[in-house]
């Protein structure tokens, strides 16, 4: 794994516009950054990332099995009791899942022999999908064509094919509705891309904002044309749905959700503690405990405190050695509105540094198969929504 500076394509902003990639630059700087790329060997991709990704997904299934069989686990995850049966039903019914992203700290085989370490699993509402699948792929092809990078490069990126294929296999009858909240361009773009894939899979689609969803007399969800919502892809966290007014209608609505309700177990950071409890010592896992677990005291050395439910790196604290529970020892900290449901503590495994940048590796799953890689770089140790997206290549 190497970080290699490279010239930008002259016309990439125009290409972005043509491809519907509107959020490549934030007010305070670039988000899409092709001034460098990461280069991996095929062995690094296949042995160190792809294989662990699918293995962890299987372990996560065991976590779901355990959670739905034990009310105490669901209580620890702060999942509201009225949804326990619904989660179990969605699991036993084998409701299909579409996608997820495992975030790893990894520095490559040449620099160290440390396996990729799982930092968290974005199982319910991952974004960065479009830029991983489409724009990164386009960069690779164009950069090879114009000689910016060597010929014969490959990329860990079968996202597009797998998304179209997976959506076609859901067996969706009638229209697939797709929703996100108003006022987030990034969320909207991700939903538009999933909608695009669904159309390519031959499905009829209809976009609706979460705020516009209605309910009929029988408690079924409706769109703005008063048509029933049979299947809903929602880029909207399950814990928000469960807490909101219409949430209580979900179990009896008859609507099928993507991601399915059982993903609520895995998008919770408590799942990291359950993974460690069930698969302690696994090379790709970091010691992680619920913050109120007495065993958490066994963490010798710095650790990270993360809310059970949070987004985009908010409310994360890295606490120095001996600073157990005392925030004034924080080495790094992000602000935010999360944390009311409780926390986990995770052994601190810093992101590697390449020229002053800290890359976090997001490994994509589509229908539970490893499907690609996205790299987001930050100048700080906690990856937030300020991180830049850096493309990658595979070249032996």
């Amino acid at each position, binding site marked *: 794994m190497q970080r290699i500076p490279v010239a930008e394509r002259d016309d990439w902003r125009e290409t972005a516009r043509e491809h*519907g990639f509107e959020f490549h630059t934030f007010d305070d700087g670039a988000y899409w950054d092709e001034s460098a790329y990461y280069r991996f060997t095929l062995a690094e991709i296949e042995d160190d990332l792809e294989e662990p990704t699918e293995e962890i997904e299987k372990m996560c299934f065991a976590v779901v099995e355990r959670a739905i069989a034990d009310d105490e686990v669901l209580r620890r995850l702060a999942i509201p009791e009225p949804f326990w049966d619904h989660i179990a039903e969605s699991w036993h019914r084998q409701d299909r899942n579409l996608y997820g992203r495992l975030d790893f700290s990894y520095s490559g085989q040449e620099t160290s022999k440390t396996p990729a370490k799982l930092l968290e699993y974005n199982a319910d509402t991952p974004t960065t999908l479009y830029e991983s699948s489409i724009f990164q792929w386009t960069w690779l092809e164009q950069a090879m064509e114009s000689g910016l990078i060597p010929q014969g490069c490959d*990329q860990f990126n079968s996202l597009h094919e797998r998304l179209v294929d997976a959506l076609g296999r859901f067996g969706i009858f009638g229209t697939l509705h797709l929703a996100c909240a108003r006022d987030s361009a990034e969320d909207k773009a*991700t939903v538009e891309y999933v909608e695009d894939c669904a159309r390519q899979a031959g499905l009829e689609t209809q976009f609706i904002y979460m*705020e516009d969803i209605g*309910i009929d007399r029988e408690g079924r969800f409706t769109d703005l044309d008063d048509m029933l919502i049979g299947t809903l892809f929602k880029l909207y966290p399950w814990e*928000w749905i469960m807490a909101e007014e219409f949430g209580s209608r979900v179990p009896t609505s008859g609507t099928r959700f993507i991601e399915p309700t059982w993903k609520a177990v895995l998008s919770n950071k408590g799942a990291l503690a359950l993974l460690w409890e069930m698969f302690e010592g696994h090379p790709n896992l970091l010691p992680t405990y619920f913050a109120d677990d007495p065993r958490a005291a066994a963490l010798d050395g710095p650790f990270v405190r993360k809310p059970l439910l949070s987004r985009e790196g908010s409310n994360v604290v890295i606490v120095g050695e001996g600073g157990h529970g005392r925030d004034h020892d924080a080495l790094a900290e992000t602000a935010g509105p999360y944390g009311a449901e409780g926390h986990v503590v995770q052994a601190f495994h810093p992101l590697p540094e390449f020229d002053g940048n800290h890359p976090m590796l997001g490994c994509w799953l589509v229908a539970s198969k490893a499907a690609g890689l996205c790299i987001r770089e930050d100048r700080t140790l906690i990856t937030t929504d300020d991180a830049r997206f850096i493309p990658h290549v595979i070249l032996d």
Partner: protein
Amino acid sequence: MKRSRSIALVMMGAGSLILSACEEPTVEALVYKDVQQCLDDSTVDLAVCEESFKQAAAQHARVAPKYTDPAACEADFGAGQCELAPYQTESGGSVFMPLMMGYMMGSMLGGRGGVAAQPLYRSSDDAKNYRTADNRSVGSTTGKTTVSRSAAAAPASKPYTVSRGGFGARARSFGSAST
């Protein structure tokens, strides 16, 4: 190869591909504005006319589009073209639906031939054509006619929305949903 062999966007961006729609298969159907027009058609059995009309009329209230605002109903179907539906909203308000303007049936009883007996409507922006409760045009011809197979299918029950806005509160206080 570890990457997709090709990518495509059909909706996003400026370079969208244009997909040509397939020609939809059609079926033969009978369309009448009322039961009398059917009875006047010597090619159709009287019992078929009456039984199909009964089936269509019985579905009308269930499958017609629903409105809680009468003006919205009239905007879609024309002034004076709406009636009260036999339902109420949860808070006791009225529900409106368009008048049944005709009916469609197969030439044999019991929906054989792939045509479900059903009510028909006329929307104000396309008043010359009949449309099904699922808003599929069946043309302006009465008597024997040809309709698309999807228009001949049994219409779906139409819910009416009694409340909206029960999702979104967390997004307003927390911001983006993405992780």
